[in-house]
């Protein structure tokens, strides 16, 4: 413990000594923040601000033919001519940061863009990681049956078991086996995405769950599963609920509220995960940027800010590990609850269950 303290202090002193006042002329914190939170056609290389790992750009031009080329051609807002079609990533305007086709008259055309961007690449990596994490557990169970696994496989299994036995089975009851694959996939996917986002360099670092497209797709999947597999009782509760007649007959007050509720559920799922994860990323970036913002005030201020920012960043990152799990868990838990509510079988046989759920 004593050594640890000494090493930490030494490290912090070293960091503050290294922080030489060196401020870039065109330093724009807002730009940097949004660049890190957003998507991109290449992947940043650590310690190198001029080169990016090239990724394939896949776009469909105005005439309907597909183009696939390396994103290296578009670096630093360069104009790239692929045959007779010119492509460009504008630095500002409506299509800022997106690949556009420059038409003959000089106007921009936003094509159908299925590029393997940084986020898409991160998705692929995440899929591979999830498979690499979950498959050994399945293999273990196929080989050893009911024996308890050890080490990493045991840790993953206890995580899966925590969600499956702790949330899915008690909430869904007899339907647990039917919906568990979907819910467990959602959980593992979000959890790994969250954790990968916390790693600052290559395999991680993409702000996936802090991207509204990703969370929206996840919420839409829950929405589809909830409504497509919904039972008769669920639809009856929406269109003919058990309330006094005047609430539903001449003016359909309850129906409007219920239908509204059907759509607010996925919306809340989308925004909850997105805002939580993006917020975490943003705080860490801002804390890091404070060092450079305060660089103007001299070496002393710079050194002190570096130490403080570093400590806060580490604290936030550790907190984000917790948030990563909590948000993945909350998303899964709410999805389970929504699906369970749509699976109710009416008042006769499952009344007690529905009342406990309502609480």
């Amino acid at each position, binding site marked *: 413990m004593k050594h640890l303290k000494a090493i930490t202090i030494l490290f912090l002193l070293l960091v503050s000594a290294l922080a030489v006042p060196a401020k870039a002329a065109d330093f724009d914190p807002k730009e940097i923040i949004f660049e890190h939170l957003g998507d991109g056609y290449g992947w940043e290389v650590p310690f190198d601000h001029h080169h990016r790992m090239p990724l394939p750009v896949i776009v469909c031009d105005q005439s309907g033919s597909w183009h696939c080329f390396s994103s290296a051609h578009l670096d630093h807002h360069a104009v790239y001519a692929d045959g007779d079609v010119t492509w460009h990533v504008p630095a500002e305007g409506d299509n800022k*940061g997106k690949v556009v086709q420059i038409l003959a008259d000089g106007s921009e055309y936003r094509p159908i863009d299925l590029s393997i961007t940084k986020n898409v690449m991160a998705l692929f990596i995440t899929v591979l990681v999830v498979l690499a994490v979950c498959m050994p557990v399945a293999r273990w169970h196929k080989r050893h049956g*009911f024996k308890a696994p050890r080490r990493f496989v045991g840790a993953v299994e206890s995580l899966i078991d925590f969600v499956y036995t702790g949330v899915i089975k008690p909430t869904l009851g007899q339907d647990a086996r039917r919906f568990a694959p979907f819910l467990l*996939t959602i959980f593992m996917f979000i959890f790994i995405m969250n954790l990968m986002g916390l790693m600052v360099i290559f395999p991680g670092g993409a702000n996936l769950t802090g991207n509204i497209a990703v969370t*929206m*797709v996840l919420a839409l999947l829950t929405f589809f599963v909830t409504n497509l597999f919904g039972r008769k009782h669920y639809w009856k509760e929406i269109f003919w609920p058990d309330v006094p007649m005047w609430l539903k007959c001449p003016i359909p007050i309850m129906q409007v509220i219920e239908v509204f509720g059907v759509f607010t559920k996925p919306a809340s799922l989308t925004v909850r995960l997105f805002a939580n994860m993006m917020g975490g990323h943003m705080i860490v970036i801002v804390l890091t940027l404070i060092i450079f913002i305060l660089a103007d005030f001299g070496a002393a201020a710079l050194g002190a800010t570096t130490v403080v920012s570093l400590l806060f960043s580490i604290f936030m990152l550790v907190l984000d590990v917790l948030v990563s799990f909590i948000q993945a868990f909350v998303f899964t838990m709410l999805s389970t609850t929504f699906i369970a509510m749509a699976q109710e079988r009416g008042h006769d046989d499952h009344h007690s269950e529905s009342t406990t759920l309502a609480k």
Partner: protein
Amino acid sequence: MELFTPDFGLVFWMFVCFAVLFFLLWKFAWPAIMKGVDSRAELIDQGVLYAQQAKEQLDSAKLQAEKFEDEARARQAEILREADRMKSQIIEEARTEAAREAKKEMDAAKVAIEQARKEAQQSFRNEVSAFALDIAQKVVRTELADPAAQARLVDSILDQMEPGK
């Protein structure tokens, strides 16, 4: 703002990725894991149940054994008491039998003694009467040598024989 507008490309790839991941996990991972987890939970439950039952059985077996032991002890005591009783009875019987035998012997002896005594008495009497007759003969012979005395004797005998006197 760019952050709040979902990108079509990313949405598309997200669907694809999720579909692929879901298919693979649904096909190869989740059923095996769920089966394993469920069967293990079941096994543990059954194990606990089995242990409980075994404990109950053991307890009842212990109780049973104690009961048997108590019974055996009671039986043992019973048998011992019975043996004791029989012993004393046999002794008692032997004693009465012996007493009876002895009494019989004694009675027989008594009768024999009585007999002997009576016989002895009889012979003694006979002898005494013979002696007495002898003595009387001798006395009478001496006495009746004098005629006057003879006459007196006859008189006294006659007196005695006369019923009116």
